[in-house]
Structure formats: structure tokens, C-alpha cells
């Protein structure tokens, strides 16, 4: 079935190239390519990092900002209070907005108002990567959707294309809004987009993402990080055994942040 679909996509790509020009073909082609790459990674035992959020455990700690602060300090994320210009990599939003299609008027107030941790979903089929005209944002082999702030031209097409509001643009120079610049991680310039990178710089050193580490340190244990391609990993087992949600599943972005309610 899957290979049949792939064949169809290839044929469609060819037909589109002949009929409608190379533009249409490259969209279809990119999707087919992403699929075959994901398939290869699964078969070849490559890693596919993902995050699971236990929203109940998270919400139990009212007002807890351990993961947010850890992330924002580690990555020199500026603290801009103005809502129109704020930069955020990870933050909390009410379940009503995070799971627009799962919460309804009879959902209990606790559920609707429950603050849910949100961040970049590191989609397997990321629209932001598809639309970026310079490949400044790209998908790394082990999962994280990355940003090269030196290549970014600041067109904000990725901000427009992301269905999760996970991308922040530097409307102004962020440096005055960073309390202590940590020289270990480069702060961004104004005029570029930034976002959560799943702490790929920490993963490279065998460390957990800063948010996950902070959550564990707090004793909340609401965040779980792991490799979805490893059938024995804790995250894979949890996602397999419990009902989990991914945001806006219907868009086909295949998010890699899993939520349990």
C-alpha cells in the first residue's frame, strides 16, 4: 500500500512536471522524498527523537516555569514582555487553544483551562522547512527541525507556514533583553527567526534537552524524551500503550511532540 502510494506520487510528480511545470512537481517530489527518507531512517535504525508531555502532571505544578526558564536561559532567549514582539521557544497555553479540535463546550473547565506546554513540534513533514526559500530551516537526520540564523533572510514565510505559532521573529535587537548572555550559545541578531531546536547542541554531547532535565530536577517528571525508532524506548512504549494526541493531526505534519491528557 505504502509503496503503491509512493509510486503514485512519483508518477504524479512526473505528470505534473510535464503538465504544470517544475514548480508543482517539486512540492509532490519533496513529500515523496521526505517519506522515503523517514522510511529509510526507520528501517536503517536511525534515531528519531521525540518528546512526550504528560499534561496532567505538568498542570499539577501550577505556575511552574522550570522548563521554560531552563530553556530560555540556556539559549539566550530574550525576555520581551510586549506580546506583539515576544520571543518564546517553549511556553504554556490553555488546552482549549492547543487542542482546538479535541476540546468542546462540555469539556470540563479544568480540562479547557489546563495550561499545556507548547513548543516546536519537530514535525516529520514540517511546513516551515518546505516553505523556507533558503533552507535556513531544515530537518536534521535524527529529527529536530533546525535553524541556521546566519542564513535566514528574515522573510518570515516559516512563521506564516507553521500551524503551531512555534516560531519567533526578532523584531528588534534581542541582546538588551537577555539578562545574562551565556557565551556557550550564540544569541541571535535582529531580523532573523528563531525557535526550539530540541537542544540539538546538548544532544550532541549526550545530554537531555534542557527542559526535560529541568522538569526531572523539579521532580515533576512531566516531560519524556527519547527515540521513537527504538521499540524498547520508554517514550515509544508510552505512546504505544496510551492514547496520545499530536497537535492538528489533520494537517499531516506528523508532529513529534506527543501529549497525554
Amino acid at each position, binding site marked *: 500500500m505504502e509503496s503503491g502510494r509512493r509510486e503514485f506520487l512519483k508518477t504524479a510528480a512526473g505528470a505534473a512536471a510535464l503538465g504544470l511545470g517544475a514548480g508543482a512537481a517539486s512540492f509532490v517530489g519533496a513529500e515523496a522524498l521526505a517519506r522515503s527518507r523517514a522510511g529509510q531512517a526507520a528501517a536503517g535504525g536511525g534515531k528519531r527523537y521525540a518528546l512526550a508531555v504528560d499534561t496532567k502532571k505538568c498542570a499539577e505544578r501550577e505556575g511552574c516555569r522550570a522548563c521554560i526558564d531552563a530553556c530560555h536561559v540556556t539559549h539566550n532567549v530574550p525576555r520581551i514582555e510586549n*506580546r506583539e514582539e515576544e520571543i518564546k521557544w517553549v511556553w504554556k497555553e490553555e488546552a482549549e487553544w492547543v487542542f482546538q479540535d479535541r476540546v468542546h463546550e462540555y469539556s470540563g473547565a479544568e480540562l479547557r483551562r489546563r495550561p499545556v506546554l507548547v513548543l516546536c513540534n519537530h514535525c516529520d513533514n514540517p511546513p516551515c522547512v518546505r*516553505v523556507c526559500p*533558503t533552507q535556513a530551516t531544515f530537518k536534521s537526520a535524527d529529527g529536530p527541525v533546525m535553524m541556521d540564523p546566519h542564513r*535566514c*533572510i528574515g522573510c518570515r514565510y516559516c512563521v*506564516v*507556514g507553521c500551524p503551531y505559532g512555534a516560531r519567533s521573529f526578532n523584531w528588534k535587537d534581542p541582546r538588551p533583553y537577555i539578562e545574562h548572555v551565556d557565551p556557550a550559545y550564540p544569541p541571535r541578531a535582529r*531580523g532573523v527567526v528563531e525557535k526550539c531546536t530540541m537542544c540539538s547542541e546538548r544532544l550532541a554531547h549526550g545530554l537531555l534537552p534542557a527542559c526535560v532535565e529541568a522538569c526531572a530536577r523539579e521532580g515533576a517528571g512531566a516531560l519524556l524524551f527519547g527515540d521513537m525508532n527504538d521499540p524498547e524506548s520508554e517514550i515509544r512504549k508510552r505512546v504505544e500503550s496510551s492514547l496520545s494526541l499530536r497537535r492538528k493531526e489533520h*494537517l499531516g505534519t506528523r508532529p513529534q511532540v506527543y501529549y497525554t491528557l
Partner: protein
Amino acid sequence: MLEKALRGSGKYWGLVGFLLVLIGAGLGCYLWQFREGLQITGLSRDVPWGFYISQFTFLVGVAASAVILVLPYYLHDYKAFGRIVVLGEFLAVAAVIMCMLFVFVDMGQPMRVLNVMLHPTPQSVMFWDVLVLSGYLVLNVVISRVTFSAEVKGVAPAAWIRPLIVLSIPWAVSIHTVTAFLYSGLGARPFWLTAILAPRFLASAFSSGPSLLILLCLLLKKFTRFDAGSKAIQKLGVIVVYAMLVNIFFVGVELFTALYSDIPEHKHHFQYLFLGLEGKTMMVPWMWFSQTVGMLSVLFLLNPKVRQKERFLALGCLGVIVAIWIEKGLGMVVGGFVPSTQGSLMEYWPTAPEVVIGLGVYGIGFLVLTVLYKVAVSERELEEA
């Protein structure tokens, strides 16, 4: 040939001076934006594209509309357009230059804009848009230059230009189609996720572009000895009317789908634009004004007796331009962002420096247009004298 632009009447220099003042003001504000970043605009986290990108979208339509003259003249030998086809091509040149500048001023890192060419990315519609717009600019510069200088010399243009002219016809359609695809291919934005967007863009382009051309021709007739001829102008008027009717029909089709299906994520954007959402009503008067003016203008122009009076024709065309400018240059882009992907309602209004930068870009475009039209008119006046 260009030296014709260096000698002109007081009125001509007055216009050039006025445009230079606009450009100067725009440049000043742009330098400010260059130093401070896009924080000086009204753009925000939730509305990351606004005035600049919507002007770009509107002007792509103006650029594409040159095809309205090129196609009948070159493919169907419609002689009445012979005198003004070059005016359409010059308008396309000026409009594409403005498009590129509007994209440029919108960049957070303008010095890196050529990264689009350095790292070509076929999966990005923006890459294709840059490509087709540059190509369209080159096509129109070459075609207008070759055909017009041949005309001035009183000889037939070189034969190799004809394939380029034929190519420029689908190319014109492509620039506005690709520009629509910038928007309509995004799952994140249900407002634009509609197959009618590209056809609607073309319909609005083929009404607003020729409207602008009619106004320009009437201005030339008033202030110079160049007369486009009433046959050409009347034919353009007919095109404006039908294209505008098609555009209104497309808008209606879109409204029906969104409102009758009653799917919140599609409906909310139209509610925001036409009724306001939760007290956020900034766009409402503009949208109603746009729809009313558009509707009245087309009903007005629909009557051939009215249309034949050039003063009324000008009025109707102005109405069409205003209606589409608001619809496309304001509502279409901003409406897609409110509500945001997270359901929040952050409104947008351009700031003064943002508008001045925009006026500066229009200044540059109209200066290019003025110079090109001056050359065309002077040569025509010579021919006729």
C-alpha cells in the same frame, strides 16, 4: 532614446520632483528601519506580514495585467492596442520593480536576500516567485525595448522577439498564480487554503490593472499630445467590467463555501473582516467600503452609455482600483492572520514610517513609469509631427 526623459515641461519636472520627495522620505524611513529592525512597523508575532507584502501582492496583479494588451495585439492582431501595448509593458516593468522592492523592504536581513539565489530551493514557492518575477521583468524590458525602438526607427522588430512575446503571455499568468500559491499552499492558514485564490487574483488583476492603464491613458491625453484612441480605451473598459464581475463572483463563491459549510476555521476570518470578532473591528469599515465601491463601480461601468463618457469611465476605474486595493492590499493578507493559528486576535495596522516606506517604493515605481512614459510620449509626438 532615454534622453527624451531629460527634456520636459515644468509640469513634467514638477512630477519628477514630487516623486523624488516621496522617494527621499521613504528612503529616510527605510534607513531608520534598517537600523532599528522591523519593530518600527505595525507587524507582530501574530501578523508577521502586512502592508509591504500586501502591496507586493496587489502590484503583481498590476504587472500581470500587461497581458490584457499583449495577447489581443500579438496573438489576435487587434490593431487598436498597437499604440498602447508598450504602455502596458512599461507599466509591467514599473510594477515588477515595485514588487521586488516591497519584498526587499519586508526582509529582516535585507543584506542576505540573495541567499534565495545562492541556495536555490525548488520546494519553496517564494523561490519560484523570485524566479518568475525576475524573468517577467527581463522579458518586459527586452520586449518593450526591442519593439519600441523598432517602431521609432520605422522598421519591423527583429523576428527573434516574437517567441519572447508569446512566452510573456503565459509568464504573466504565472507570476500571479505563483504569488497566489505563496498563500494557498499553507495548511496553517485556512483563510487562504482555497483553490479559488489564484483565479481570484487573476480576475482582480485583470480589472485593477487595466483600470490603472485607462487612467494613465486619460491622464496622458489630458496633459500631453498622446491619445491612446477611444477604441482602445473603450475596449479596456469592457475588459475591466467583465474581469471585475468575475472577481465579484469569485469572492461570492468563496463566501458561500466558508459561510454555508459553517466550519469555524474558515468562517472566522470572514467574520473578522466583515463583522469583527470579539470587538476587534478594525477591518470592518474598510471591507464594506471596498465591497460597496467595487459593486457600485461595476454596476456603473456596466452601462455602455456611461462607460463611453471618459469622465465617468475614469471615475468607475478609480472605484475599481480602490476596491481591489483595499481587498487585496489590506484584507486579503491581514485577514489570513486574524484569528492566528492559536486562535488569538491581534489586530494590525501599519505605522506611519511603514506607510512612508511604502510611498517611497511607489515613488520609485512611478518615477520609472514617468520616465518610460515620457520617452514613449515624446517619440510618439515626434512621429506624429
